[in-house]
C-alpha cells in the first residue's frame, strides 16, 4: 500500500509561497519586456532596413529552434567562458525575455501582416507619420487579433520558468526540490508544485484576458 504524506510537504508552505512569488516575479518582469521586444522585432522584420531584417530573422529562428533549457545553460554556464558572469536570477530573466521575444515577434508579425492596406493608406492621408501609423493604427488591432496566441505564449514561458530552478534560481520548482530533499517526499512535493502551477496558469490566463482589452488594445 502506498502511503502519501501531503501534510509533510504542506508544512513547508513558506518555501512554496516564496517560490511561487519568485515565479510570478520572473513572469511579471519578462512578459512585458518580451512582448515589447516582440513588437519591435515584428516592426523591424516588416519595415526595417535589410541588414536589421536579416539579423532579426536569425534571432527568431535561432531561438525558436533550440530548447529553452539550452538557451538558459548557454547564458548561465557558457557566457562565463567569455568573462560574462550572470547571477542565476539575471540569467533566468534574460533567457525568458529573449525566448518570449522571439516567439512574440512571430505572433505579432502575423497580426501586423494581416492589416488591410486601406487602413495604412487612410492613416497616411490623415497626415500621420510612420511612427504614429504603426503605434496608433496598425498595432492595436494587430495585437487584438493575436492576443489569444500571445497569452498562450506568455503562459508557456511561465511554465518554462520551472527549468530556471536547475541553475538554482529560487522559484517554485526549486522550492519543491528543496522540500523533497529535506523530507524525501518527492512525489507529494512535485504533485503539489504542479497543482500550484496549474492554478497559476488559470489565473494568469484570466488576468491577461482581462488586461488585454482594457490596457493594451482598447475595446
Amino acid at each position, binding site marked *: 500500500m502506498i502511503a502519501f504524506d501531503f501534510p509533510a510537504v504542506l508544512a513547508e508552505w513558506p518555501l512554496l509561497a516564496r517560490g511561487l512569488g519568485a515565479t510570478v516575479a520572473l513572469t511579471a518582469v519578462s512578459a512585458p519586456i518580451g512582448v515589447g521586444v516582440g513588437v519591435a522585432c515584428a516592426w523591424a522584420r516588416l519595415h526595417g532596413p535589410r541588414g536589421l531584417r536579416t539579423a532579426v530573422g536569425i534571432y527568431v529562428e535561432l531561438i525558436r529552434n533550440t*530548447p529553452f533549457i539550452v538557451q538558459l545553460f548557454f547564458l548561465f554556464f557558457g557566457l562565463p567562458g567569455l568573462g560574462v558572469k550572470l547571477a542565476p536570477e539575471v540569467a533566468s530573466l534574460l533567457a525568458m525575455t529573449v525566448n518570449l521575444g522571439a516567439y512574440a515577434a512571430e505572433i505579432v508579425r502575423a497580426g501586423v501582416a494581416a492589416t488591410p492596406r486601406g487602413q495604412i493608406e487612410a492613416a497616411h492621408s490623415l497626415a500621420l507619420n510612420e511612427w504614429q501609423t504603426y503605434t496608433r493604427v496598425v498595432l492595436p488591432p494587430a495585437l487584438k487579433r493575436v492576443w489569444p496566441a500571445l497569452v498562450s505564449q506568455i503562459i508557456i514561458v511561465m511554465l518554462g520558468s520551472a527549468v530556471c530552478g536547475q541553475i538554482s534560481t529560487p522559484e517554485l520548482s526549486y522550492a519543491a526540490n528543496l522540500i523533497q530533499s529535506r523530507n524525501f517526499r518527492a512525489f507529494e512535493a*512535485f504533485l503539489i508544485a504542479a497543482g500550484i502551477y496549474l492554478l497559476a*496558469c488559470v489565473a494568469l490566463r484570466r488576468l491577461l484576458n482581462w488586461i488585454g482589452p482594457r490596457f493594451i488594445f482598447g475595446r
Partner: protein
Amino acid sequence: MVEFSLWDIVRNLLLAGRWTVVLSLIAFSGGAVVAAALLLARLARLPGADTVVGLYVQLFQGTPLLMQLFLAYFGLALFGMNVSAWVAASVALTLYTSAFLTEIWRGCVNAVPRGQWEASAALAMNLGEQLRHVIAPQALRVAVAPTVGFLVQVVKATALASVIGFVELTKAGTMISNATFRPFAVYACLALMYFGLCYPISAWSRSLERKLSGHR
C-alpha cells in the same frame, strides 16, 4: 592533462544526439497513438469522454513538463516499478505529446464542414466509415503541417529529460563541459546541434503549409 579538440566535443555530442532522436521518435509515435485514441473517444461521443479528455489536456498543458517528468520518475517508483530514466522520460513525454496532438487534431477534424458529417450520415455510413471515407482524408490534409511543426516542440522537449539523468544531447553537453572546461564552445555547439535538428523540420512544416493551403 588531456587536451580536447573541438572535433572531440562535436563528435561526442553527435553520439549523444542519437538518443535525442530516439527519444523524440518514441515520444512522438507513442503520443500520436494515445492522441488518436483520445480523439476517437471524443468523436464516438463516449459518455464523459469530452470532460475527461478536456481535463487531461488542461492538466498536461497547464503544468510544466519538468514537473511531469519528476512525477513520472518518482510516481512510477511508488508503484514498486524499477524506473530507469528511459522509462520515466518516455512515459512523461508520450503523455505530454498526446495532450497537444489530440487538441491539434481535434481542431483539424472541426475544420471539416458539418455538412460532410451530415451527408455521410445520410448515406447510412457508421462512424468508422464516415471517418475513413469522408472525414479523415480532409482532416489529414489540414493536420499535416501543424503536426510536423509540433515535432519540433517534441525534439526541444526531450532536452528536459536531461534533468532526470537521461543522457541525451543536453546532458552530454553538461558532462562534456564539465570535463573540458570549455563551456562556451560546448554550449554553442549544443545549441547549433539542436538548431540543425529542428530547423529543417520547421522549414518542412512551413513549406507543407504553403503547399497544402495553396491548392484551394
